[in-house]
C-alpha cells in the first residue's frame, strides 16, 4: 500500500465505508509511516471539527421576508395578466367596431391600380376615392360616438375598477390572516 492509497482509505474510513480487512491494513500502514500518521491525525481533527459543528439557525424574519416577496411577485404578475387582458380586450372590441370601415378601406386598396391606369378619368375617380375616404372617416367618427361603443368602454372601465377593488380586498384579507 502506498501513501496515496492510504489517504483514500483514511477518507473512506471516516465515512464508514472501509471493511475490517482494509482497516487492519490501513492501521498497519499508519503505524509504520510517520507522514501518514500525521495525515490521519489532521484528517481526524478536520472530521471532528466539521462533525461537531451545529447548523446555523436562520433569522426568525426569514419566513415573513419570503412571504412578503412572494405576495409582491404575485401582485406584479396579476397586474401584468390584468393589463394584457385589458389591452387584448380593447383591441378586439376596436377591431369589431371598426370592421365595416376596415373592409371598405381594403376594397379601396384593391381598386387603386385600376384608378392609376385609367388615364384622363383618373382625376374624376381620384375625387370619388377621396369622397369615399371622407365618408369612411365619418363612419369612423360615428362609430366612436355610438352609444353602444361608449357603453362597451364604460363596462370595460367598470370591470377594471371592480377587479382592482377585488385584488385589494383579497390581499388585505391575506395580510390580516
Amino acid at each position, binding site marked *: 500500500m502506498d501513501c496515496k492509497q492510504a489517504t483514500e482509505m483514511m477518507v473512506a474510513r471516516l465515512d464508514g465505508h472501509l471493511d475490517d480487512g482494509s482497516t487492519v491494513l490501513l492501521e498497519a500502514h499508519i503505524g509504520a509511516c510517520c507522514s501518514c500518521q500525521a495525515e490521519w491525525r489532521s484528517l481526524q481533527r*478536520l472530521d471532528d471539527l466539521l462533525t461537531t459543528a451545529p447548523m446555523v439557525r*436562520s433569522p426568525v424574519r*426569514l*419566513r415573513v421576508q419570503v412571504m412578503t*416577496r412572494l405576495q409582491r411577485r404575485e401582485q406584479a404578475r396579476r397586474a401584468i395578466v390584468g393589463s394584457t387582458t385589458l389591452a387584448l380586450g380593447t383591441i378586439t372590441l376596436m377591431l369589431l367596431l371598426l370592421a365595416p370601415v376596415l373592409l371598405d378601406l381594403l376594397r379601396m386598396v384593391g381598386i387603386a391600380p385600376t384608378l392609376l391606369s385609367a388615364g384622363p378619368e383618373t382625376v374624376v375617380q381620384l375625387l370619388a376615392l377621396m369622397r369615399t375616404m371622407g365618408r369612411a372617416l365619418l363612419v369612423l367618427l360615428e362609430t366612436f360616438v355610438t352609444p353602444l361603443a361608449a357603453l362597451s368602454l364604460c363596462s370595460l372601465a367598470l370591470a377594471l375598477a371592480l377587479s382592482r377593488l377585488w385584488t385589494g380586498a383579497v390581499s388585505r384579507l391575506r395580510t390580516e390572516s
Partner: protein
Amino acid sequence: MGPGGVIRVITETEWIQQARSGDHVAFGRLVQAYQTPVYNLTYRMLGNAAEAEEAAQEAFLRAYTHLRSYDPQRPFRSWLMAIASHYCIDQLRRRRLTWLSFEDEIAVPENPVEGGLVQLASDLPNPESVVTQQERAVQIQTLLSTLSPVDRAAVTLLYWYDYSYEEIAETLDLTVSAVKSRLYRARRDLAKLLEEDGENGLQTSD
C-alpha cells in the same frame, strides 16, 4: 421512521399539495419547517449572513415557482436542498467572475462572521463556550471558502445533512465516483490547511 415522522410526512404532503394550488399559508408552513436547513446551507456556501439570507429567500421563491415540477416520490427536503445548492454555486461562480474582472488582489477570504455573529442551533452553556464556538465557526468558514463551489456544496451536504454519496450525486448532478473523488480531494486539502493553521497558531486564540 417513527409515528411522528409519518405524521410529519403526511402533513408535509398536504402542505405541498395546497401550496401547489396557490395556497400561500401552506407554503409559509413549508418555509417555516425548512428555513434553518436551507439557511445553514446558504450560509456554509456563501460565508456571510446577508448573502445567505438573500439566497435562502431566493431558494424558497424558486421552489414555489417550480413546485409543479416537483416529483412527490422524491423527498421534499432533497429537492429543496438541490435548488439552494445550485443557486449558491451560481452565485459563487458569478462572484468569482466579478473579482476576476476587477483584477483585485483578493487572496484572503472575507471574514465569515462579518455583519454580525451567527446564531448556532445549539444550546451553549456559558460565554466562554460561545467564544470558542464562534472561533470554530470562523475557522470552518475560512476552510470552506478555500474550496471550489461544488466541493463546498458536497462537503456541506455530507457533514451537516448526513447525505450519502448517492444523495450528494443526485443533488449536485454528479456521478457517485465524481462525488467520492471530490470529497477525498477536498478533505485532504482541508486537513492540510488545518494542519498549517495549527502550526502557525492561527486557529484559536488561547
